[in-house]
Structures are given as C-alpha cells and as structure tokens.
C-alpha cells in the first residue's frame, strides 16, 4: 500500500505547491464543416463542436472530484479556421469567430483556439481574409484565441506575413484599448507551430490529427521549486536529477488524467504536453525555480543557463512517464503570468533582450509581454522576426505574444485579470527597424548541416 508519507506528500503538492493539471484540451477537426454558404458553414461548425464537446467540462469536473486534483482549464482547439472556411463564399471571416465563441460558451470552456492561419511560405486567399479579420474577431469575442504561423525551419520566414502581423497586433490593441489591449493576449505569432498543442492562446488542431483527440497540459512549477529547496548548495548534477524526478511524478499524474479523460469521452488520447506553466499565484512561478538555483533575480547573468537546465530536465523526467509526449513541452516564461518574472521586470532586471535570449533555450518564446502603446508596428514585426529566426535556426517552436498596451508607457502596469495576470510595460529599442521590415519577401530556410 501507499505509505502515509507518500499520501501526505501528494496532498501537500496539491494544497500548498499548486500542483494541478493545467488543461484538458479537446481537439476537433472542422474540415468537414466547409460549405460554400458561410452561414451554413458556421452552423456546421457550431453543431459539431457542441456535439463533440458536450461532456468535456462535466467529465473534467468528475475527474477532478475523483482524483482530488484540480484541472484548471477545459478547452477546445479546432482546425485552423482559414482551412475550414476557405470554401465559403465570403470576404468576412468574423462570423466564423462568433460561431466559435458561441460554441465555447455553450460547452462551458474558457478558451477555444484555432482562429488560425499557416502562412510560413505564403498566403492563400483564405489566409489573407482570416488574418484581416483577427482584430475584429478578438475584439468581438470573449473566448476565441488566434494564431498565425509565419515561419518554419523548412520554409524560412515569410517576412510579408511578419510585416502584416505587426500591423494586425497594433490594430488588435487599438480595438481592445478599453480592456488593456486584451485582444493581443489571445493572439500568437509562431515559428514551427505544433499541431497538438493543448495550451492557449496558440492551440489549434492540426491537419495531421485525427477527427477528435484529447491532449493534456501539465504544470507544477511550485512542486519543482519546493523539491529544489532541499538541494541548497548541491551541484547542478543533483539539481538536474531532482527536477527530472519531480517532472516524472507530475507527468505520471498527467498521463493518468489523460487516459481517464480519453476513455470517458470515448476520444483517442493524443499527447501529454510536458510543460511547466506558471500562474500569477505566489509559489507557482518558473522564475522562483531559476532563483532557487542561485540567481539573485531572474534576468541576471546565468539565467539562460539555469533555464536551459530546467527545460531539458523537465523533458527528460517527463518523457518516461507519458506514453506520448508532444505539444510545446518545456518551461514557459510568460511575463504577466509569473509573479517572479513580473517582479524582475518591474525592478528593471528582466529586459526584452534577455527574454529573447531565454527563449533560445526554453519552450515557446516572448510570451505575454506588455510593450509601450506607441511602439511602431514595424518594431513589433522586427521583434517577431527575431523570435522566428531563433525558432527557425534552432529547429524549435518559438512564438511571440506581444501586447502594445494603448496609452501605457514603460513603468505602467497592464492588468488582464485571471490566469492572464498583469504585466509591467517594458521598453523596446527606440531605433527604427522600418526599412528592414519594409523589404518583404522571404528569409530563406537555414542550412541543416555545418551547424555551429
């Protein structure tokens, strides 16, 4: 039998160290919802989502109750809408976003991802319509998340898309200015986007995925931090081992929940995403882990090395615990959603350039970063291009979720509420990148050998 100490250790992880399942995400293919009549297509989309996800939230709550482990989010991802809507004879894609929003509200999920386009090599007519609709779609819906893949290792960086996305981000910020430019918190620009990501705002259901699938995102920065408290002064070998062991346990729990959700919903299990996802709650911070390794404050010299160790150890520990891993898998460093990152950004230690360096070695990228409202669209595009270049050259997913908060300047704070947290506005370089961005075209795919 499980020993008393093991039982109480588990309870302590849940009660005091914020151990939870971060998300159960149901992926749904919308390819069969295509219809020349956009209204019919919207109806098919709504009907299919509400049919397949009817029991998602209730099933999640039942599992929470029986296992005594919180499942923070129940969410839905769908086929990139630019694919599902391409057959419809319409110029306006906002109604598709409204249909997704209604379906999300009906099923009770807090976010639905997939108002997306994959344009890493170029735009289809549908891709253009979708991207053009993003600002209004995000302003007029509550739960819809949007993403655009602008680059990949195999095809390079679509700089026309990068230039366009800078303007789209600005427009989204303007249209949601009354809510702290919240729309931008639901918009991600990707390089090497993955098809099975359960985490928002970048989740979508890729074309290589089955009709319907369950993906689970785990979490647990608080548990890793707590485990490291016993390793004071120990070598990095010990630190890495401790992180691995902890990640293994947390992932086993994720695998259990994923299997249970899959069997109860009658939907195949896809992947466990081995991610350390922080929340704004005290004690649930990735920054705390890095500081526990011996950094006075996250963002100082040594941060990139610490994050590299953490990111790698989380994956190594988790891999053996799950039958299939995927998604983004790694440590997230969203500034607004991590109390330690917020503190460091406010103190001026954590700047955009250091964050960019950190994204070379961690999962995803420049995440939930509030920038001054007067940041030019070209500067946003240039930041996207830098981030895409890191992903492209290093064969990894990178993303940028930037919030040029209207009316705010360096030192101000933007509050998004809930899990999205609040972010101090951090500065960008004042020197212009406009001529660079205006060139357009494609940055060619990088060489895959001679890799130094």
């Amino acid at each position, binding site marked *: 039998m499980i020993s008393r100490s093991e039982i*109480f250790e588990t309870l302590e992880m849940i009660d005091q160290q914020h151990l939870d399942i971060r998300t159960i995400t149901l992926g749904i293919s919308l390819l069969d919802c295509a219809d020349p009549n956009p209204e019919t297509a919207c109806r098919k989309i709504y009907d299919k989502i509400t049919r397949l996800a009817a029991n998602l939230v209730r099933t999640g709550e039942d599992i929470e109750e*029986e296992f005594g482990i919180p499942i923070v989010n129940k969410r839905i991802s769908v086929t990139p809408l630019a694919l599902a809507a391409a057959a419809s004879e319409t110029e306006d894609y906002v109604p598709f976003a409204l249909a997704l929003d209604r379906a999300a509200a009906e099923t009770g999920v807090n976010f639905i991802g997939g108002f997306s386009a994959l344009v890493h090599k170029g735009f289809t007519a549908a891709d253009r319509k979708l991207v053009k609709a993003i600002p209004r779609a995000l302003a007029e819906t509550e739960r819809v998340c949007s993403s655009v893949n602008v680059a990949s290792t195999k095809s390079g960086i679509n700089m026309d898309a990068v230039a366009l996305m800078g303007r789209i981000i600005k427009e989204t910020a303007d249209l949601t200015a009354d809510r702290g430019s919240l729309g931008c918190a639901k918009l991600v620009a990707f390089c090497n986007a993955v098809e099975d990501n359960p985490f928002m705002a970048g989740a979508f259901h890729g074309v290589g995925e089955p009709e319907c699938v369950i993906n689970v995102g785990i979490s647990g920065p608080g548990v890793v931090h707590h485990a490291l408290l016993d390793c004071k002064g120990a070598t990095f070998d010990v630190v890495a081992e401790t992180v691995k062991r902890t990640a293994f*346990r947390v992932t086993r729990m994720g695998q259990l929940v994923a299997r249970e959700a899959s069997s109860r919903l009658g939907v195949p299990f896809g992947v466990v995403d081995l991610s350390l996802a922080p929340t704004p709650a005290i004690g649930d911070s990735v920054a705390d882990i890095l500081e526990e390794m011996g950094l006075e404050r996250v963002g100082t010299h040594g941060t990139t090395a610490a994050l590299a160790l953490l990111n790698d150890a989380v994956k190594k520990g988790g891999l053996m615990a799950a039958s299939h891993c995927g998604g983004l898998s790694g440590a997230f460093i969203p500034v607004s959603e991590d109390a330690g990152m917020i503190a460091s950004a406010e103190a001026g230690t954590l700047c955009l350039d250091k964050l960019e360096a950190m994204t070379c070695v961690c999962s995803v990228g420049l995440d939930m970063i509030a920038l001054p409202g007067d940041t030019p669209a070209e500067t946003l595009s240039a930041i996207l291009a830098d981030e895409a270049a890191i992903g492209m050259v290093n064969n990894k997913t990178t993303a940028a979720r930037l919030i040029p908060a209207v009316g705010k300047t360096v030192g101000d704070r933007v509050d998004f509420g809930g899990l999205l947290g609040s972010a101090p506005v951090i500065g960008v370089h004042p020197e212009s990148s406009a001529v660079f961005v205006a060139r357009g075209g494609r940055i060619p795919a990088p060489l895959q050998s001679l890799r130094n």
Partner: protein
Amino acid sequence: MRAIVTVIGKDRVGIIAGVCTRFAEWQVNILDISQTVMQGNFTMTMLVDLEKCELPFQEVSEQLRLRGEEMQLSIRMQREDIFEAMHRV
C-alpha cells in the same frame, strides 16, 4: 474501485467511529487504516474498497466532506490510482 481517505483535524473522541459508521452504512469496505496524533493534531489515512457501495463516488465524497464539516475535520477521498501514479513505477 479503491480510494484513499484522509482525515485531518483536531483530535477528539469518536473520530474513527464517526467516519467508519458511515462506511458501514454505505457498504464501503475498509482495507487498511492508520492513524496518529501529533501535537494534538489527528491524522488518519484509510484504504477503502467501493466495489459494493451503491452510492456514486461523488455522493460518498460529498457526504464525507459534510460529515467532516460537522466534526470540524478535513475529510477527503481520492482514487488510489493518483497516488500509485505518483509514487510507483
């Protein structure tokens, strides 16, 4: 289905009886039980079998929680699988 029940709170007379009587009523079989008192704090862990129990898991869990509130204890029941997953390979 097997579950782990944990009871935590201030020690007093009749805690075990208070919980076990309910289990008997519900046909929940107690497979293992261990309790200790440290500095006046009572902790008990039980392994129970819900095979013959006619109430749904959620109902048993909720009734236990309410019973805990009456007795000023924290009582919770979780499926054994979660502990197995975390602590056994």
